[in-house]
C-alpha cells in the first residue's frame, strides 16, 4: 500500500517549499503566547493533532514530507527542513504555520484555524521539550481491545445488591464522586420493565398484583416472568432487530426479487431465545429463512462497486456485530479508522463467487484482496473453499469466544436500549471508550459464559439497581462527556406507542405487512401488534425508519411532523375513535371507573383529584364516545404517557 493517493493541498505545499529558516514575519512574529502551565501530551496536544493534523501528516500521509506519527518523525521535520525547534516555540516554524499569520502558509490550510489557546498549548509543548509518552502513536487510530477480559467484581459493601453490575457501578460512582441514588418506586419500575422487555404497558391487574406483593425479590421475579413470555418478548424485540438487520415487509429491492425477508426466522429465533452466537452464525452462514441478511438489497440497475451485495454483507457484518464502520473503507482507506480498502474487500470476498477486484472510489485497481476476517488473530479463512464453506468459517471466527468485541457490541446495544444511552456511544463505533470498561467487559463475558443467552443479559441489566435509578436527561450531544447517573429517559417507539393505545382500548386494527399470523407461526393470542404492520404515515412520523439502511438508534426527540400526525392524522384519529367506542361499551356504566382505568393502565398511577375533576367536567353527565376519544387523546399526548422515564 505504498502508492497512496497524495492529495495536493495547495496551502501546504506552498508552506513546505518555502525556505524554512526565514519566514517573513519571523522578526516580530505576533503569535499567541505560550501556555503558562505544564502540558500533557495526551490531554492537551494529541486531541489537537488528531483533529487538525493527522489527516495529512500521519498514517501514511506525509504532505510536504512532514509526518507526526511519532515524536521522532516530528523532529525530523519536512521536505524543507526542521519544523520544530525543541524548547523554542518562538523560533519553531510549526508555531508560524499554526498561528496562521501568513495566509499562504497557514495550517490547517482549510477550515477553522487553531484557537489562540490551542496554539498556546502547542507552543508550551515545544517549549517544554516535546513531552511524548512512550507507546503513543498518532500513526494509528485508537482501537479497542478485541480479546475478552475477565473482570474481578469487587465486593461493594456500600450497596445491598447481588448484581455485579451494581458492585461495579459503586466503583464508578466513587470515581466520579456520585452518591448512589435511591431506586425508583414499584410502579415506575414496573412500567419501565414491561415496556423494555415486552414493549407493552403493565396491564392493570398485573400491576396491581405486583404493587401489592411485598416480597423483597419481587422485582427480579417480575423481570424473570416478563422475559419468559416468549411471544410477547419476540414481538417486542423483533423491532430492534428489524431495524438493525434491515428487515422489512416492503421497501426498495423487493420490486424484482432483490431482497428477501427474514421475518419468520427472526421471530422464531427470538421466541426460542436462540443463543446469540448461533443466531449470528445463521445470519452469516444462512439457513433456510435467514438468507435475506447476506443477500442484502439489490437495486435495479448498475451499483457502485462499494455497494455490491458482497460489500453490503461486509459492511453490515462489521457494523451490526462488531461496531466497525467499513463504509468509508469500501471506497478508499478509511480516514476515520485504521481499516483499509483491502480489509473491506478481504471480508467481502467471503461472499463473492468470483474473486473481487478492488475498486478504489469506483475505479478498478486490478488488485485482489486475500480473503480474511478483519482480525486475523481470530482465525483464517481458506480462500480455496467454496463460498458456502467460507461463510461457515467466517461465522465461526466471528462468533469465537476470543472475539470479545463481538459480545461487547451486543451487550452495549442492549444496555443502550434499556438505559437510553450506551456504555459506548454511538453504538456502532465500538472503538470508542466506554464510560465504564468494567461493566461492559463483565456483561460481555457473562454472556459468553452463559451460552450467549441474551435474555440473561437483559435480566442482568433489568434487575440491577443501575436500571432502577431515577431517570436522567441527556441531550445527545458530546457523548464523550456523558456521566452515568441513571437511565436516560426514552421515548416510546412508534410500535410501543401504538401498542399501548391498542391495549388500552383493546382494539387492534391494521394492515398486516407480514403473514406470520396466517402462517400460524404465532400461536396463542392473535393481536395485531404494531411491528407486524406495513409502514404507514403514522408509524413513519413516529419514527419507524425506512429500513433500506441499518438503523441502530432511533431518534428519541419529537418533531413537528410527528405532532401534526398525532394531532390530526387520520390513522390515530381512527384508532382513537374506534377504541373509544369500545371503552364506552366496556366501561359505560361508570365514568369514574373509566378515568381510573385510563390512568392506571395508561400512566401506571391513580389520577389526582384535580385530574378527575378536570376530566369529569369534560365528560359531562354521561359517557359519550366523542368525549372518551378526546380524553384518550389528551392522556396519550402527555409526556408522562409517551416517555419511558
Amino acid at each position, binding site marked *: 500500500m505504498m502508492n497512496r493517493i497524495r492529495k495536493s493541498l495547495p496551502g501546504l505545499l506552498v508552506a513546505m517549499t518555502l525556505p524554512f529558516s526565514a519566514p517573513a514575519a519571523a522578526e516580530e512574529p505576533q503569535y499567541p503566547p505560550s501556555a503558562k502551565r505544564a502540558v500533557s501530551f495526551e490531554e492537551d496536544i494529541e486531541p489537537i493533532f488528531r483533529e487538525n493534523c493527522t489527516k495529512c501528516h500521519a498514517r501514511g500521509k506525509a504532505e510536504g514530507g512532514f509526518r507526526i506519527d511519532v515524536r521522532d518523525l516530528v523532529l525530523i521535520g519536512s521536505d524543507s527542513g526542521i519544523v520544530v525547534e525543541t524548547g523554542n516555540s518562538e523560533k519553531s516554524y510549526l508555531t508560524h504555520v499554526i498561528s496562521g499569520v501568513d495566509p499562504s502558509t497557514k495550517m490547517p490550510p482549510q*477550515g*477553522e484555524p487553531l484557537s489562540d489557546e490551542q496554539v498556546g498549548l502547542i507552543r508550551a509543548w515545544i517549549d517544554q521539550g516535546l513531552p511524548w509518552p512512550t507507546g503513543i502513536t498518532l500513526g494509528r487510530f485508537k482501537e479497542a481491545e478485541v480479546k475478552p477480559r475477565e473482570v474481578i467484581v469487587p465486593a461493594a459493601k456500600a450497596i445491598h445488591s447481588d448484581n455485579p453490575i451494581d458492585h461495579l457501578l459503586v466503583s464508578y460512582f466513587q470515581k466520579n464522586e456520585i452518591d448512589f441514588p435511591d431506586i425508583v418506586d414499584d410502579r415506575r419500575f414496573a412500567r419501565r420493565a414491561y415496556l423494555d422487555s415486552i414493549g407493552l404497558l403493565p396491564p392493570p391487574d398485573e400491576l396491581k398484583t405486583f404493587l401489592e406483593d411485598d416480597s423483597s425479590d419481587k422485582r427480579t421475579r417480575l423481570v424473570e416472568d416478563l422475559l419468559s413470555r416468549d411471544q410477547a418478548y419476540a414481538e417486542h424485540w423483533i423491532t430492534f432487530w428489524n431495524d438493525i438487520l434491515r428487515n422489512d415487509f*416492503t*421497501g*426498495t429491492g*423487493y*420490486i424484482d426479487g432483490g431482497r428477501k425477508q427474514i421475518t419468520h426466522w427472526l421471530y422464531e429465533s427470538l421466541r426460542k431465545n436462540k443463543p446469540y452466537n448461533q443466531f449470528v452464525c445463521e445470519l452469516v452462514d444462512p439457513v433456510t429463512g435467514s438468507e435475506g441478511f447476506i443477500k442484502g438489497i439489490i*437495486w*435495479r*440497475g*448498475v451499483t*457502485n462497486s462499494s*455497494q455490491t451485495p458482497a460489500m*453490503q454483507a461486509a*459492511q453490515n457484518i462489521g457494523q451490526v456485530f462488531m461496531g466497525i*464502520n467499513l*463504509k468509508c473503507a469500501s471506497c478508499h482507506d478509511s480516514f*476515520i479508522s485504521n481499516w483499509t480498502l483491502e480489509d473491506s474487500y478481504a471480508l467481502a470476498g467471503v461472499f463473492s463467487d468470483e474473486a473481487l477486484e478492488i475498486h478504489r472510489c469506483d475505479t478498478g485497481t486490478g488488485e485482489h484482496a486475500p480473503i480474511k476476517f478483519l482480525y486475523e488473530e481470530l482465525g483464517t479463512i481458506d480462500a480455496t473453499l467454496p463460498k458456502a464453506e467460507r461463510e461457515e468459517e467466517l461465522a465461526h471466527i466471528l462468533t469465537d469466544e476470543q472475539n470479545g468485541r463481538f459480545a461487547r457490541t451486543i451487550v452495549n446495544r442492549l444496555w443502550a436500549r434499556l438505559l437510553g444511552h450506551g456504555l459506548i456511544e454511538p453504538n*456502532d*463505533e465500538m472503538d470508542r471508550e466506554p464510560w465504564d470498561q468494567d461493566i461492559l467487559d463483565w456483561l460481555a463475558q457473562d454472556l459468553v459464559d452463559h451460552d450467549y443467552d441474551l435474555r440473561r443479559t437483559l435480566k442482568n441489566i433489568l434487575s440491577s439497581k443501575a436500571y432502577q435509578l*431515577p*431517570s436522567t*436527561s441527556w441531550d*445527545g450531544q458530546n457523548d464523550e462527556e456523558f456521566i452515568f447517573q441513571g437511565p*436516560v*429517559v426514552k*421515548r416510546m417507539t412508534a410500535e410501543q406507542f401504538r401498542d399501548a393505545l391498542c391495549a388500552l382500548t383493546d382494539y387492534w386494527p391494521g394492515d398486516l405487512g407480514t403473514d406470520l399470523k396466517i402462517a400460524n407461526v404465532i400461536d396463542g393470542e392473535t393481536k395485531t401488534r404494531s411491528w407486524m404492520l406495513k409502514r404507514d*404515515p403514522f408509524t413513519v412520523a413516529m419514527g419507524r425508519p*425506512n429500513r*433500506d*439502511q441499518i438503523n441502530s438508534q432511533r431518534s*428519541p*426527540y*419529537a*418533531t*413537528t*411532523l*410527528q*405532532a*401534526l400526525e398525532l*394531532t*390530526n*392524522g*387520520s390513522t390515530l*384519529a381512527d384508532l382513537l375513535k374506534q377504541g373509544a367506542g369500545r371503552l364506552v361499551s366496556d366501561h359505560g356504566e361508570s365514568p369514574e371507573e373509566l378515568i381510573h382505568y385510563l390512568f392506571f393502565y395508561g400512566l401506571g*398511577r391513580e389520577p*389526582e383529584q384535580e385530574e378527575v375533576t*378536570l*376530566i369529569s367536567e*369534560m365528560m359531562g353527565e354521561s359517557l359519550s364516545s366523542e368525549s372518551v376519544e*378526546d*380524553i384518550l*387523546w*389528551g*392522556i396519550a399526548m*402527555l*409526556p*408522562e404517557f409517551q*416517555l419511558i*422515564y
Partner: protein
Amino acid sequence: MNSHNHWNRRNFLKSASAATLATLASNSPREAFGNAPIDSPPALADTMIVLWMGGGMAHTETFDPKRYTPYEKGLGSDQVLSTFPAIDTCVDNIKLSEGLEKIGSVMDRGTLIRSYKAGDLGFILHSRHQFQWHTGYAPPLTVSAPHIGAWVAKVLGPNNPDVPAFIDIGQRLDVGEGEELKAFHQAGFFGSEYGPFMIPYPEDAMKRVQPPEGMAPSRFQNREKLFRKLMENSPIGEFGSSYHKESLARSMDKAHRLLNSPASKAFDLSLEPKESYEKYNTGRFGLGCLLARRLTEVGARFIEVTTEYVPFEGWDTHENGHSRLVGMKELIDGPVSQLVLDLEEKGLLDRTLIVLASEFSRDMLVEGKPDLIVKGQVEQPDVIEEEKFYGMHRHFTDAGSVLLFGGGIKKGYLHGVTAEERPCKTLEGEIRIEELHASLYTSMGISPMHKFEIEQRPFYATKDGKGKAVKELFG
C-alpha cells in the same frame, strides 16, 4: 404575527429563523467537523418551487423542438424527431413545442436549459434517476441521503414558522414503485423533522392543517385545553429529563400553531377566487401549482409539485406518446405560466426560484446513451403502421430540458445546444446534476459545499462537495 397579506419575510428571517433553527437542530447530525465555517453565498431566493415532470419528459416534444414529421401510416421511425411543430415564444431565439404557448409567453421571465445531461446510471430506470435528481446521489447508498427539499429545510429552516419547510404536493406513495419513491421522499439522516409534508391531493390540502375529519373546532379547542391542563398537572416534571419533555411539548406547540395560524388558510383552495382557480384547474398538477403559489405567499420554504410518477402514466410514455403528450402539455401549460405571472404580479417572483425538470428525456429510437444497447427496451417498429407507435417511447439521458424562473436567474436566456439530428444529444453547455443542484443551492443561499458529518464522515449538498454553480444562468 402576520395578519398582513404581504408578510415581511426579511424581518422574520432576522428575528426568528436563526432561533427556530437552533431549537430544531437538537438531534441533528453535526455540521460537518464542527469547525469549518461554511461560506454561504448570499440568498437570491427565499422560496424554491420544483415542478416535477415525473416519468421522463421528452425534450424534442416540449422545450427543444426538432424537425417536425406529422403522422402518416408507413412513416419510418428514423425520420421522426418531433411529433409536434415548433412554435414561437416571446423570446426570439427560443422556440417551444406546440401546446406550450402559454409558457412560451412567459419565457422572457426565465431561462431555458436544453443541455441537462442525466446521470449515467447503467440501466435507465425512473426510480434511480429520480432518486439521483432529488438527492444528488445515485442509489443504493450506505447512508440515507436527504431530499433536496430536506437540505433546504435543514440549512435554511422554515421561512415562516407556521408553514412546514418542505412541502411535497401531488405524489402518492402507494402507487407502483412506491417503495422506490419513498426512498428519496424523506429527510434521510437529517431526521423526520426535515422530511416532506406530503399533500398527495392538493384539493384536500386543508385537511392536513385542520382538526381531524368530523371534529368541530370547538371540540378541537377543548381537547387541546384538556391536554394542556393535564400536562400542567402531570407529575412527570419531578422525574428529570426536562429535555425530552420539552421536545414533546415544543412539537405539540408547533403543530398547534400551524393548525391555528392564519397561514393555514393558504392550504384551502376553496378560498381562491373562482376565476383564478379555473386558470389553474387542469387537474391535480394544476391545482398543485395554485397551492404552491398560495403557500409561497405565506412564506413556504421549499415546495415540490409533481405531475406524479406512476409507472406507465403521465410523462412515462411507452406508447401513444404523441397523443399522451397533448394531454400532458394541457396539464402544465396554463398552471406553470400562471404561477410565474401571479408571483410576478405579487412581487414575489424575484425571490422565488421555480425549477421545472424531469429525471431524463425520451427518444423514439435511442435507449439510454447513444450507441448503448440496453435490454428490455420498448419495441419500436422501423416503420410506423399504427399511431400508438408515434411518440417518444424510449429513455434518453444525453440531453434534457430544465426551465428556471426567478431567484436571480437570467431572463429570456437560452442555455445549451443540442443536435438537430438523431441522436439529439447535448453539444454545448452541458449541465450535470451536480452543476444544476449547485446552481439551485446557490440561488437559495446554500453553499454547494455545505456539509454535515454523518457517521464521522462528511456528506455534502452536492456530491463530494464538487458541484459548481453555472454562472451563465445568473444575471
